[in-house]
């Protein structure tokens, strides 16, 4: 018998290993039979208890992991909403025993109560993890009182919530225990939620109200009794709170724990910064540019290994086209404006990955990173699953029923009418069962080490569809890689064994810290591991994800390294403990024994220094919504200011500034005074702000008298019409005394459309300055090509329009004169929206389009800006071109281009522009069915339901003949690029990933860091876009250090010293008091001045 048993075991083992080799997946889902975990979270929907009665009915339940009996194995507790929870003891080898019945009375939780989150923490500091269970649901208070099971040792627990003061009756989501005041014991933040969504948007008034059952709470631990200090500590407790996620971390690295709380619906998330005195300050708006709107779970972790914690919040934007078209999206500008007017900030429906810039700002780059669209997602977990030293991302996903399905929304109306006709009562369950059910896969992404992630659902074996809720990672089998545990609705919990160690022989280092005093688990301790030339950083903070808690044991992947070069532990209170040459592949149990002092932070002198107070100018943007005129554009064009230009207008040896009007005040000259400050020249009013929208300005000597004259290009969109005076540019001639006099008669009619740029150049070498004026857009007729102009100077400052091949070449955003063919004549390079970078060679007798000679393949982009500089020192001027970047929903490549088809398809006198881009390998129209119906009324007849439209491609919308006749613009590149001028070619030289965070609207070149090599300062952002695109705001000014050979590296924000919040509309270097400054015009803000090094 013995013999045959081991033979069987051997046979099984070989089967398993064959299976592994056949699949090669990182994770193996283990069946209930082998793990012993049969737990599931079944939902029983009834006429009386369902999602219509309780809107958080499908929010799922959680799981917490921790070593409850200190045997070195991680145990599990699962909550179920309607059933008892379950406690599983880890027996080793991925086997578990359900000990719920034996572990103490009521450890499964209260029957008939709605259970939500669970957390494990050593609440009383006795060295044993206790269990805290949260309750919600529309029941009486007693049914909702949370429970605290105090660990008695030997896996026995006794409920003592009341005794500890934690039997809270709130609508609770989850709790986190951590030390808010560094006093050595664990305090508690209770995450709660309201049960009634308030539809009335007079939120400012609701914010003043307090709802103690819905608002979050903060409890201070006073010797094992918890005291509610919520309001005193500055925690918001209004009825708009819909807390779904919480993560605790020292976000600003000041040695004190901060808190990030997500809110579903309209209330913005909260970032509570620790004030070091037991209180917190809410700093969301100062810290983040925008937030996820319907925020769910949250994780905080350093994902780019720069030692700074980044923040990831989840939302519900689907990845695939079909569900984007079927489900409710955000398309109401009114709603968005109302939210902003009610101080609800910028919120968009997608996951947000907030990259910590280290200077108090964050760049939201979820779309660039590739993790923004993971559907109805709940639990984010940033952890290194493949042990390569970079944290990957796991996201649970799924909602039992698609109740935001737009067809369903209409179905209910029809259902009710039908029932009324049939004189039958309405049943909620009819409605509920009519909601579509779409099981979804969870997401897992591998960190690409370049700020981006790649989807690994298939390759890593996380591809089982279902409805998942809370989840944790933990090294359940102590083999040195992180396994996954997922709580699922109506399905057994998912247990995924990580095979990284087995398959790839990766190395790891685990830590179990034992903290000081009652903080036995060292919550808040920071661990830095240095190996393979990289720094890794983690905090001991189990409170993260969704409805659960991860382990206090930390695991670092070391790739193939045999050791960590050094390890630094920073204990709460900033006490340091260092270790050198720590061998890989072990669990280090570290007791509190600080052995190093924190070195004082060294302050590097930044490249730029912000200088306030030199110019008194505030810009206020006019309110316009261009999409009310053409709803299918991508961007607004109305917001063009402030525009600046510099020249020594009065020839006093100091450079002065022209600054455009701000909607109410006219544009002016600001004269530089002796002390370097600027004074508005009240005498000259340069344009009528009610009439004009200046989009660019340039000083040049128009009449050759040696004085700077001024050209103003007019742009705008919403309230201006083609061929009207509003769009006529203006020329101001300097009278030799620093006074600019309008000379309208010197300009021909250039009012055909709005313009973007004016670029002076003596292109014909006749000794006077001529002008290229780029056409931006024809108001009301996007995306038809506007007119651009070459204005030829007669030598006396009077201009005529020349006939040129680039008069109608696209929606021009910028242009530069550059002698590409070195014939002594300046050639013209132009760029624009949805067009190629184009080269027009100046032949002396005219211009020739030589784009194809200079580019191996056309560089079709959303180009916004162009700069010229010899960046590789070869004597040839190179180009730097600003583009859309990679941080948007719109993706484009030569293989999968973004395409814009346009024509008056319905012959109603209006251009119908349809952008298409690829989603999961197929090019789909960006237009939603609602937008399509609004654009072309008869489309209601063509697509009678959202479902009918959900798979439609361009050829389903427009007949093939019409499509063939339609205009088409193409984009194959959205990255901002450097183009090196080499051997008569412009050769792409990519810029760093940080350059792709946002739209680049202005580019300055110069040796900013004074190392003798040209650097780039990329400025940008564009916040007034189609609502579905959201605001592009991740740039605070991107300084790229040049290597003199055409290569650039990103200079981090603190070192660069630049922090521009908002949309940059103009930029110029200017000498102030003999020092070089950078002046930046920021929309709706003003002029920022930065002194160079």
């Amino acid at each position: 018998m013995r013999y045959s048993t081991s033979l069987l075991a051997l046979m099984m083992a070989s089967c398993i290993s064959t299976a592994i080799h056949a699949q090669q997946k990182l994770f193996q889902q283990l069946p209930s039979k082998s793990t012993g975990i049969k737990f599931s979270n079944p939902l029983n929907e009834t006429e009386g208890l369902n999602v219509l009665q309780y809107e958080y009915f499908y929010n799922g339940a959680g799981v917490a992991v921790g070593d409850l009996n200190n045997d070195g194995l991680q145990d599990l507790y699962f909550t179920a909403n309607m059933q008892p929870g379950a406690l599983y003891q880890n027996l080793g080898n991925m086997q578990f025993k359900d000990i719920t019945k034996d572990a103490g009375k009521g450890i499964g939780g209260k029957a008939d109560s709605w259970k939500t989150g669970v957390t494990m923490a050593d609440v009383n500091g006795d060295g044993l993890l206790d269990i805290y269970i949260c309750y919600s649901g529309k029941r009486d208070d007693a049914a909702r009182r949370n429970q605290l099971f105090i660990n008695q040792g030997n896996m026995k627990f006794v409920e003592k919530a009341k005794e500890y003061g934690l039997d809270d009756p709130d609508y609770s989501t989850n709790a986190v225990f951590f030390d808010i005041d560094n006093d050595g014991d664990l305090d508690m933040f209770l995450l709660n939620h309201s049960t009634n969504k308030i539809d009335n948007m007079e939120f400012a008034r609701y914010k003043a109200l307090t709802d103690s059952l819905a608002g979050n709470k903060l409890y201070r631990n006073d010797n094992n009794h918890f005291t509610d200090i919520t309001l005193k500590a500055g925690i918001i407790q209004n009825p708009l709170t819909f807390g779904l996620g919480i993560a605790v971390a020292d976000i600003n690295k000041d040695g004190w724990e901060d808190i990030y709380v997500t809110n579903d619906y309209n209330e913005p998330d909260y970032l509570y910064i620790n004030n070091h005195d037991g209180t917190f300050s809410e700093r969301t708006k100062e810290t983040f540019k925008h937030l996820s709107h319907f925020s769910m779970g949250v994780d905080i972790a350093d994902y780019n290994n720069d030692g700074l914690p980044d923040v990831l919040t989840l939302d519900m934007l689907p990845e695939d086209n079909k569900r984007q078209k079927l489900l409710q999206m955000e398309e109401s500008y009114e709603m968005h404006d109302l939210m902003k007017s009610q101080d609800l900030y910028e919120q968009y429906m997608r996951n947000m990955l907030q990259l910590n810039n280290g200077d108090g700002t964050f760049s939201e780059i979820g779309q660039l990173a590739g993790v923004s669209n993971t559907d109805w997602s709940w639990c984010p977990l940033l952890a290194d699953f493949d042990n390569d030293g970079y944290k990957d991302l796991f996201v649970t996903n799924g909602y039992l029923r698609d109740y935001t399905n737009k067809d369903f929304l209409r179905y209910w109306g029809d259902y009710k009418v039908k029932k009324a006709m049939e004189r039958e009562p309405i049943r909620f369950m009819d409605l509920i069962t009519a909601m579509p059910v779409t099981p979804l896969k969870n997401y897992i992404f591998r960190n690409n080490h370049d700020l981006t992630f790649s989807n690994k659902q298939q390759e890593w074996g996380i591809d089982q569809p279902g409805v998942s809720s809370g989840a944790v990672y933990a090294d359940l089998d102590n083999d040195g890689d992180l396994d996954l545990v997922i709580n699922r609705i109506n399905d057994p919990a998912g247990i995924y064994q990580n095979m990284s160690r087995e398959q790839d022989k990766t190395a790891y280092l685990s830590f179990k810290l034992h903290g000081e005093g009652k903080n036995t688990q060292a919550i808040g301790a920071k661990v830095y591991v240095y190996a393979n030339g990289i720094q890794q950083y983690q905090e001991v903070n189990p409170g993260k994800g969704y409805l659960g808690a991860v382990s206090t044991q930390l695991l670092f992947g070391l790739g193939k390294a045999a050791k960590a070069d050094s390890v630094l532990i920073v204990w709460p209170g900033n006490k340091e403990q260092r270790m050198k040459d720590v061998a890989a592949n072990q669990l280090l149990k570290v007791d509190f024994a600080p052995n190093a002092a924190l070195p004082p932070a060294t302050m590097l002198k930044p490249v730029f220094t912000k200088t306030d107070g030199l110019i008194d100018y505030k810009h206020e943007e006019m309110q316009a919504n261009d999409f009310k005129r053409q709803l299918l554009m991508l961007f607004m064009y109305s917001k063009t200011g402030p525009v600046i230009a510099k020249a020594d207008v009065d020839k006093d040896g100091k450079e002065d500034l022209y600054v455009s009007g701000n909607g109410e005040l006219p544009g002016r000259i600001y004269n530089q005074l002796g002390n370097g400050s600027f004074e508005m020249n009240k005498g000259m009013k340069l344009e009528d702000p009610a009439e004009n929208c200046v989009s660019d300005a340039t000083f040049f000597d128009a009449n050759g008298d040696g004085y700077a004259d001024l050209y103003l290009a007019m742009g705008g969109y919403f309230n201006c019409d083609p061929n009207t005076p509003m769009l006529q540019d203006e020329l101001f001639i300097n009278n030799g005394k620093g006074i600019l006099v309008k000379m309208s008669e010197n300009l021909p009619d250039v009012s055909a459309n709005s313009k973007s740029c004016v670029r002076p150049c003596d292109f014909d070498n006749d000794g006077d300055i001529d002008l290229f004026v780029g056409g931006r857009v024809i108001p009301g007729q996007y995306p038809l090509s506007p007119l651009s102009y070459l204005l030829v100077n007669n030598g006396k400052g009077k201009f005529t329009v020349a006939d040129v091949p680039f008069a109608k070449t696209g929606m021009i955003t910028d242009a530069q004169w550059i002698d590409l063919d070195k014939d002594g004549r300046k050639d013209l390079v132009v760029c624009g929206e949805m067009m190629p970078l184009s080269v027009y060679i100046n032949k002396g007798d005219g211009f020739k389009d030589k784009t194809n000679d200079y580019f191996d393949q056309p560089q079709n982009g959303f180009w916004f800006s162009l700069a010229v500089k010899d960046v590789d020192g070869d004597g040839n001027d190179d180009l730097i071109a600003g583009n859309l970047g990679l941080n948007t929903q719109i993706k484009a490549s030569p293989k999968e281009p973004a395409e814009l088809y346009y024509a008056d398809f319905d012959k109603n006198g209006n251009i119908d522009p349809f952008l298409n881009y690829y989603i999961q390998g197929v090019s789909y129209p960006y237009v939603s069915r609602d937008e399509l119906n609004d654009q072309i009324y008869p489309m209601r007849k063509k697509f009678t339901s959202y479902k009918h439209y959900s798979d439609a491609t361009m050829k389903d919308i427009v007949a093939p003949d019409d499509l063939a006749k339609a205009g088409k613009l193409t984009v194959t590149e959205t990255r901002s690029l450097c183009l090196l001028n080499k051997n008569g070619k412009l050769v792409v030289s990519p810029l760093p990933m940080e350059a792709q965070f946002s739209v680049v609207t202005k580019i300055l070149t110069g040796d900013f860091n004074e190392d003798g090599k040209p650097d780039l300062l990329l400025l940008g952002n564009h916040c007034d876009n189609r609502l579905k695109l959201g605001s592009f705001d991740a740039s605070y000014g991107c300084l790229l250090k040049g290597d003199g050979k055409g290569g650039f590296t990103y200079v981090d924000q603190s070192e660069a010293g630049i922090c521009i919040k908002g949309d940059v509309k103009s930029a110029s270097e200017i000498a102030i008091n003999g020092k070089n400054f950078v002046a930046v015009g920021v929309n709706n803000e003003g002029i920022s001045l930065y002194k160079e090094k």
Partner: protein
Amino acid sequence: MKKLIFGLLLVSQLGHAQQQYDKAPFTDYIQPAVFSLSMVMMHDVVNPPAATRFYSYATLAAYQIIVKHNPSIPGAASFIKSYPAIAIQDSGRTYDYKVASVYAILEAGKQLLPSGYMLTEDEKKLIDLFKKDQVPDSIIKNSVMVAEGVVKQIVAWSKGDGYGKLSTLRRYTPLKGEGYWYPTPPAYMDAVEPNWRTIRPMVIDSCSQFKPKPMTAFSKDTSSDFYRLNMEVYKYGVNPTKEEMTIAGFWDCNPFAVSTYGHMAIGFKKITPGGHWMNITGIACRKAKLDFDQTLQAHMLAANVMMDAFITCWDAKYSTNRIRPEAFINKYIDVKWKPNLQTPPFPEYTSGHSVVSSAVATMLTYLFGDNFEYTDNSEEFWELTPRHFTSFWNAAKEAAVSRIYGGIHYRDSVDNGVDQGTRVGTFVVEKIKKAGIGPLAKN
């Protein structure tokens, strides 16, 4: 109202003796045909002004057919300026004008409505009814052909009314400053048809021909007239009587009231105000025992006067852009106040119910006489008890004031709306009178 839909007509006829074709009046088929359009419009959530446009063209198509058959009935061109010459294309074949005209209502709906395809089923049912009535197949076939021919021409004419160009116009952006309309809870829907004034009217000359009296000026001052108007509405929201609630509910006619459950928003669909008055017209026709031609004429006139009333009203709405009571009260009086009815998504002044009900009541009073008593049971589907009215004006005034009870309109908007609608109605009545259309029913 039992015979409102063809399905029920079909069922109810099984037990009865079939009509003799040559004696069959077919009058009973007109209202179900119009109601079929209402059903599709409910499905499509057609907004109130657009609904009357669809009723107008559909009933005009049918009217065109009876005009050709009955020389005593004046053609539409005699009161609709833009009405084109429309030929009856019967190819010399025998058809039945009643069969053709009822069918034309459905066919026009099919061609014009977004989900017009849903009417294919109703057309089949209607043909089944005619077959049961022993209309020969060839007659049905020829009549369908005639109907299709007329509808084609009506649809071509409709294309010139500006509807297709609505999408080319600038959409509504909430105006800066206080007192202007902006979207309201819970769905915060965009403004409905801000450019409806550009639609070509039927009988009236222009959208601005009947401007309302000036509205009470906006003020937040608690002693101001405007504040008093708000307090009146506020009171109905706080403490309405049962009767006021009943009246408000009876005239709700919100095509798409939205209820939210967390992330889910579900729409409650109802017939539009225009649809409601089309039902009332049907009830009156039956009560007055009008014949086929008169019944159709009444439906056509009701639809057209309402279309013009809506154009007039919508011009007022988007000239004044006045704030809704809910927005004002939430902002300045009580943040938690909710109106008894859901606030419709367009500016407040003037009240559409008041304008349209008054216009159509003026028309119906002319056609059926004053003090025409009837019981309106058309809202039974929505579990609303039938209401008895002593006259069309009795109903119209109740419809108007119901909007104050509902918490969605101010008193001046209702009073001045009634005045505005009456002027539209009177103008249209004068026009048709001149064209030779006299009262239809003798009291």
